[in-house]
């Protein structure tokens, strides 16, 4: 599933990234790589997604989330 389909307070593991080299570069440099665990902190319509991963609170634009495939896991 896509990252933005996750509900607040759920956890997931990143499975795949899709996008151009620039996008992949930026997303990996902020720590989102396949296999990494993320926790959704906030997911409001028309706002960037807030998630927590690798020690860091990350804010991701909604269109950026399109390129991130995840799989929900139980906490």
């Amino acid at each position, binding site marked *: 599933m896509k990252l933005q389909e996750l509900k607040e307070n759920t956890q997931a593991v990143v499975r*795949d*990234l899709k996008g*151009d*080299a*620039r*996008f*992949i*570069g*930026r*997303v*990996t*440099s*902020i*720590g989102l*790589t*396949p*296999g*990494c665990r993320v*926790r959704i*902190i*906030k997911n*409001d*319509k*028309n*706002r*960037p997604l*807030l998630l*927590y*991963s*690798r*020690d*860091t*609170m*990350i*804010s*991701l*634009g*909604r*269109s*950026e989330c399109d390129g991130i495939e995840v799989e929900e896991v139980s906490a």
Partner: protein
Amino acid sequence: MSTATIALLGQPNSGKSTLFNALTGLKQHVGNWPGKTVEKKEGSFAYNGMTYEVADLPGSYSMTANSDEEVITRDFIASGEADIVCILADSSQLERSLFMLADYAGISAPCFLVLNMEDVAKDQGKTINVKALEKKLGIPVMLFSATDKKAYDRFYATLERALREKSHIDVSALEKEYEKISGYSEIKDQLSETDISGYTPMWLTVKYLENDKVVSAKLKEELSGDKAASISALGEKAGGAIATGECKFNWIDKLLDGTVNKSETGVKLGKLDRIYTHRFWGKPAVVLTVILGLFASFIPALPIMGLGSLVDILKNVVQGALSTAGCPALIMGLVCDVFIQSMGYIIKMLGFVFGVTLVFGFLEEVGVMARISYVFDNTMGKLGLQGKSVMPFLVSFGCTMGGAAGTRVIDNWGQKVLTIALAWAVPCGAAWAIVPMLSTVFFGMGAPVVIAVLLLVMILHMWVTAKIFGRGLVKKEDRCGMIMELPPYHKPRWGALLRYVFGRTKDTFVRVAKVVLLVCLIFWVLSYGSGVNDTSILYRLGIAIEPVTKFFGLPWQLFIAFVASSVGKEGAVGVISALYAGGSYGEGFMAAMGGAARAANLNELLLANVTKPEALAFIFAITFNLPCVVALAATYQEIHSAKWTARIAAYYTVGALLLSCVAYHIGLLIW
């Protein structure tokens, strides 16, 4: 005394600028990287008989050539100009922020690692075993906190040790990770005889796999045709930046395993963040924060503004002294009307810039600015801007120069220029001082309608301007949306912040003073007449082109006032008052810059000489004219491009005349 050059490298929010400011204090210089619009910050300090040159490399997320900033950073490091590279990471977000170190590994320049924000990490209950990290990495590592005075002694000691040892990151464990990527070893073998100075074959291979444009092009040049074809076939199957990114984080995980202890605490948003990220209250909270910041910036601004007023008093004193000494009127005019008058004006404006830079620098430093970005990302994204752009817009209601100074928190040059270009459309405090007054004189109860229409036109203007300039400034491929960390709130580093603000204000002063003096001199020459108006160039020009300006709804007096408003909007009313009262407007013009010289019977003068459509045209013309010459200079100071500054200025002058034309002809239909 010998010298050494240090380059500071770190992701945005790693505390790089704070360290730079703390180290170099006022001994810093801001310029441009040759041929680029990226800001170049250099400084120096002396310690223990050594002079250290410090280069604050532009903020970038990785060592991949995705942006100008990253290319500059990489080229500077590879050039060997720096004796040592100081890599910064954030201890409170260690796992993620060590990415820069992992990406750096394999570059030939020696380095050491500074783990910043020690205090925040401690509050999180994190303990970091520096010695163990040093052993694994093979380079000097230190914990640092910019608020801790003792930390600087440790920093100097580590720096000296790093310069003695000139050590490199031990990449053996990292390379083991890379070797798991299919094709990695084969590509690296093919690169063994290439010689791109500054980088190891491992680093080049990884960047090649990541599709780095610059590295790929260079390798294509260096390698023979069949070798290039073979690595490109190998590269296609390797999995690109996703695979190498995984390797880097696997390496970081192993690095931190056993060296960092963290008591696992659940992540929760703090009280303040719950408000800022609230679906409904977030926006009002941000607007309120910026408005409070705007008010707060007047506190440090007022003493400096007072100083500016003292200069005005000085002007009268000097004028008196010169005239008793029998000084020729020409010299007296130059000294008093041009030099002293302009200085008073500049100092008053600078007070505001000082306040805004301090308050909004503070908000950036403690981490509030990142929240502002988050809340307004969607809205500002429609204009091709970052969420942070909302701050300069709101500040511009007070002073456009402050808004321009505020754009320094925007890290992308194109978005910075576009933000300033749009912020100019926001009527500033000076416009608010005269537009409601003029509207009331001419339209009485209709004044609120005029102001509402002005605000609507402002929004339309910003939208159109974003369309016109946006394409050239913020390219589609650069419209990378928000991928940003929300840093934990930090305590402010007052010393470093103040030093930065003083340095910045000094720089602004120098640049602004040059531009303002030049422009004022030109206007003074143009309006210089021997007490009688009809000898000045400006008057003759005004009369000559009146048939044209009339079409825009501006008789010559109003047109000259419009021209004067590009120097300072406060001046416009003073000029009208001088012109319609039949006085010498050369004088009125200069006095107007101080915001004075308003005839007592101004209302009657205006109503007797100006028709309603003309008044409406004039209101639109000055509201949307370029804000003032100081804002122009501040814009140049921020964007470092004379071409774009001139382009925006010309656009606003033409735009204001067009709007006044439309307003005039609509006015003619109504009245």
